[in-house]
């Protein structure tokens, strides 16, 4: 399956090193258009612009959490189908179920590998393609 490598990706994490790692890994996977936000609250107005085709977010952030950002996205008629991947250290079973209920497309626990990221992205966009063709 071909993934559009020109898509606009928003990387949200309160730690700059983590944003840098995620961006570098995405670059290795052939993506090139990224923006960054350091909190859900700064990410949300950016997302509302409608620019992003894919959101990669941390969970635990000071002002607005990643799960809240996800809920905002899913509740917005224009944005609700935006693929959303959580990369987080939150690993309680109840939290993963919570994220699933909120409509997350993929869930990666930190620390993670490049292979895991690649696998999840493939899976997410395979499902997006399936959804669009059906």
């Amino acid at each position: 399956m071909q993934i559009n490598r020109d898509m606009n990706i928003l990387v949200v994490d309160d730690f700059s090193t983590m944003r840098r790692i995620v961006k570098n890994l995405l670059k290795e996977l052939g993506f090139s258009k990224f923006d960054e936000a350091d909190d859900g609250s700064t990410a949300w107005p950016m997302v509302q612009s409608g620019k992003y085709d894919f959101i990669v977010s941390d969970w635990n952030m000071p002002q607005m959490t990643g799960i809240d950002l996800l809920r905002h996205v899913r509740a917005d008629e224009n944005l609700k189908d935006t693929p959303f991947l959580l990369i987080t250290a939150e690993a309680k079973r109840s939290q993963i179920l919570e994220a699933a209920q909120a409509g997350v497309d993929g869930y990666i626990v930190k620390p993670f590998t490049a292979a895991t990221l690649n696998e999840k992205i493939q899976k997410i966009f395979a499902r997006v393609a399936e959804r669009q063709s059906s």
Partner: protein
Amino acid sequence: MTFATQIDKQQVQALLEALEQDDRSQASHLLDELTKIREGELHQQLRVLTQNLHQTLDDLDLDTPILLHAKHDLPDITERLRYVIDETQTASEKTLGSAENALSFLEQLESILSEGMTEESRKDGKPLIEQCSSELTNIMLAQSYQDLTGQVLNRVILIVTALEESLRELIQRSKHEFHAIPDKHVDEMQRKQQEAHGVGPNVTAKSKQDAVESQDDVDDLLDDLGI
């Protein structure tokens, strides 16, 4: 330290009877009385506890470990932990910088080599390989943070352990039974709130109980839900 309650059986029985007979005003009146007794008891307990604590603090000599810890070691701990945060951040940034540079040198090398192996490409490629190897050495050197922060963290563990010991002693001197202190209770709502905000990595044995162990566990869990 335990406190006998002044609530007696008859009062509770009277309340039960009122409730059984659906006499709401009587029930509410009796409940108010019971609450009043309980509140009085709580105030009395608090008074005793405060007196004890005051007495214990008065009895402490100025060179008692807990006082020394409070004045010298606690501010020290904060400073040491800040150092660990700063050092790990610096090391992480150095490593990322070098890795990004190395990747870019490799990219340039790849593009040179894609045009075939000529005398020219050999000449252009050599400095790139050298730069790449120097960045890898930088990455290796940046890892020395682990030695430094490890030493600082070990020191913090020592201080915290000593502080815990002193606090225990203080509790015992104020005539409390350490083992009688109740378990920390987090109700369902608090737990949910904490988890919604994020609890961070599950490091302690207790917090690991309800956590997944690996990405495979996450995948299985989500597979079951069709994600």
